[in-house]
């Protein structure tokens, strides 16, 4: 045996150069490029201020929360089309419950959680134990949630509830010292409840995915479900839980969205599930399952939301260019993924060939 190549602890550099992270780097890189472009092109209009940054968060926290749950589902190799409908349903529960029925918002939220998580678990159960494709199961879930939304009210309900107003209006302003006093920075930038919720959900998601057996089982199932079963992993339980977890994220996303728009509408967030999936995909998650990182998803959300921001700053372009830009971005990312996967496969071919012949000698 060759002593020189005896594995010692790897350097940080070689750890970071692991090919499995390339997609995440691509996402971060493109986001930074876009940000740089915005700074150069619209710096004079204040693109590079803290305010623009926090606005990205404020406007897209609900998207991010949902994307965290979706990342879990996509890594198992599944898909969940019901997320936007469940978020919309949550908004409807809160709006109708507080405004029309005079309930406490906490009761409404608790009920939403019960329904959202319950639906998620049910869908997970159907997917795993009845072997119905996730696409179809969650599509049915989406129809159900949307339909119930419309059953509750076909009109938009504006929320009139002091607790909700208070929560939605709660902000921490960014301050700086001026003449010995703390004052708000200009232009004003702040963090609200939704941002904190997003960050917390993201961190919890990260922890679950990387540091717990549950998270690793999620990866294993996405890698090869049959193998995972034969390795003795609790495949069924994990899958059901993943959909339940995603249901939870959908409800939290719905809460963030409701705080953002302060109303409930049966048609809100139409097509939102695809925005969420897009975020995850441009964050480097593979729809085939088995690959994906929370950091990637985070930057995917940022990347997805910086496009409309750039278009707003540009001013002349019509908003539907945003859709086309997102589509092109998606195309770009899928191409990069393809190239990365192909080249790493080739490398592995060569390398294992070397390894084997090296061993014979």
């Amino acid at each position, binding site marked *: *045996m*060759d002593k020189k*190549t*005896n*594995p010692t602890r*790897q350097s940080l550099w070689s*750890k970071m150069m*692991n*090919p*499995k992270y390339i997609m995440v780097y691509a996402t971060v890189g493109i986001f930074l490029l876009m940000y740089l472009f915005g700074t150069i092109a619209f710096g004079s209009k204040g693109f590079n201020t803290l305010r623009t940054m926090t606005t990205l968060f404020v406007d897209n926290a609900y998207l991010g929360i949902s994307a965290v749950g979706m990342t879990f589902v996509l890594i198992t190799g599944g898909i969940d089309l019901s997320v936007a409908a469940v978020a919309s349903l949550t908004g409807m529960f809160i709006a109708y419950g507080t405004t029309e029925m005079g309930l406490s918002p906490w009761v409404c939220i608790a009920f939403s959680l019960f329904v959202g998580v319950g639906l998620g678990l049910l869908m997970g159960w159907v997917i795993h134990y009845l072997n119905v494709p996730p696409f179809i199961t969650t599509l049915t879930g989406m129809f159900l949630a949307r339909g119930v939304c419309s059953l509750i009210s076909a009109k938009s309900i504006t929320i009139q509830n002091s607790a909700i107003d208070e929560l939605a209006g709660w902000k921490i302003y960014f301050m700086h010292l001026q003449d010995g006093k703390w004052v708000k920075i200009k232009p004003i930038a702040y963090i609200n409840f939704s941002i904190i919720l997003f960050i917390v959900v993201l961190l919890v998601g990260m*922890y679950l995915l*990387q*540091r*717990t*057996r549950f998270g*690793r*089982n999620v*990866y*294993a199932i*996405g*890698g*090869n479900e*049959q*193998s*995972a*079963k*034969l*390795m*003795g*992993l*609790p495949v069924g339980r994990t899958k059901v839980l993943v959909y339940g977890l995603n249901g939870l994220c959908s409800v939290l996303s719905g809460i963030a969205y409701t705080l953002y728009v302060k109303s409930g509408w049966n048609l809100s967030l139409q097509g939102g599930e695809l925005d969420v999936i897009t975020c995850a995909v441009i964050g480097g998650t593979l729809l085939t399952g*088995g*690959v994906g990182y929370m950091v990637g998803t985070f930057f995917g959300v940022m990347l997805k939301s910086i496009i409309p921001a750039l278009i707003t700053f540009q001013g002349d372009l019509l908003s539907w260019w945003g859709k086309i830009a997102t589509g092109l971005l998606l195309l770009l990312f899928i191409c990069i993924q393809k190239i990365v996967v192909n080249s*790493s*496969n*080739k*490398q*592995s*071919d*060569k*390398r*294992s*060939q070397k*390894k*084997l*012949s090296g*061993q*014979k000698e």
Partner: protein
Amino acid sequence: MSEQNLLEMHQIEIQFPGVKALDKVDFFMRAGEIHSLLGENGAGKSTLIKCLTGVHHKDAGTILLDGKEIQPQSPQHAIEIGISTVYQEVNLCPNLTVAENIFVGRQPMRFGQIDWRTINRRARELMARFRLDIDVTRPLSYYSTAIQQMVAIARAVDVQAKILILDEPTSSLDENEVQLLFDVMRDLKAEGMGIIFITHFLDQVFAISDRLTILRNGHLIGTYNIEDISKVELVTQMVGKDMDAIFNLKRANVKPDAPYMLKADHIGAPAKIDDISLDVKKGELVGFAGLLGSGRTETAEMLFGVTHLSDGTLELEAKSVKFKKPYDALVHGMAFCPEDRKRDGIISDLSIRENIALAVQARRGFLHPLSMKEQNDLADKYIKELGIATPDAEKKIGELSGGNQQKVILARWMATDPKVLILDEPTRGIDIGAKAEIQRLMLEMCEDGVSVIFISSELDEIIRCSNRIIVMRDRQKVAELYGEMCTQEKILAIIAEGAAAAGGEAQ
């Protein structure tokens, strides 16, 4: 008696729709024993194993482990009670790292978190035990099948099982790796583990086992000490027929002045094969010997247009041809049975009829469909000619046994009336009866003037059938042997040492 046995399976019965997969089978194993389980495909080996690992549930009978009755419910449950399995196809997750594949589901925890450091360290130690020096933090897909197989074994070994089941673990390993595996098996045996070993390679059975059990058609034939049975007896027991009668074959008779059918002149493709030349005469059977990965399959794929040629020329019947895709080769009268029948050969959900007609139809193009009658005639003809065991032509090919699937694939190509037929491991993983039949068919086709290129890992069948043998090693053609030169010892020497060591007869 029962104190001595680690595992006792009494009167196991398993019923599948339409067949009795296991009929009152007994299986006893002692601790610290390597016990081979033998039988042809469909004999019930995998069913017995799956019954033990909780994939299938038995309909009758009892299983005792250490004298206590067990009822394995699921693979997970089986692992918990101490039964660990390595399957024929690597059952790991390609996206996880090597280290994680070994520990997933039972990761060491620290402060409520997965302890990645310990995992990687222990994985490195474990791989070192297998004399493998690899970066355990790379994804499993980064490594070759052989290494993946070793990782699978490492995982199975590390769970501290009482019983280790190895289901054809050696089919993707080369000679050195097999020896390595045997060393590890002996270590484990010394530690008192019971190992159930399933393989098609009889040499390996005799090299490593203490005892063996033979199954046939779901029945127990017997359990023998390895000293008490000869190879011939063993095969006779497995097949239930006399071996000589099966393998009474004659090589094809090639006239010395027969024209060349296919000539490849210094062909090569990047990252596959640099340079190889070969020719095949009309009605000749050329065997390709060499280890897995020695370039045999790559050569076949170059000939059939699966891989693009970057160098060299290909001549078919003295006319220069260029194949961009398999379709071009098909149109020119080439045929190719790929190595991995399941992955590259069968269209599992289509019927036998559709599978047989596929290549003919592909050559005609979809706008010129074969009529139902033509398809049925084709199917009926080949079902009869090749003796495909099926109630009718509408049965899905996926529901057939391996040997019958192979016959259907063969029929698909015979139906195109090929001039050159390339067979890549047509007899792998199928039972001896079907093997002999496929060899007979190959030789019959040679008699009819078809040129056959026959790739196989089993030297005796190559030697038995070939007019000429090309030996491959490290992606190069190292020798070409004729008639008397084709002996097992000589080929093995060339494969092991290269052409020079074997004494210069090579071209």
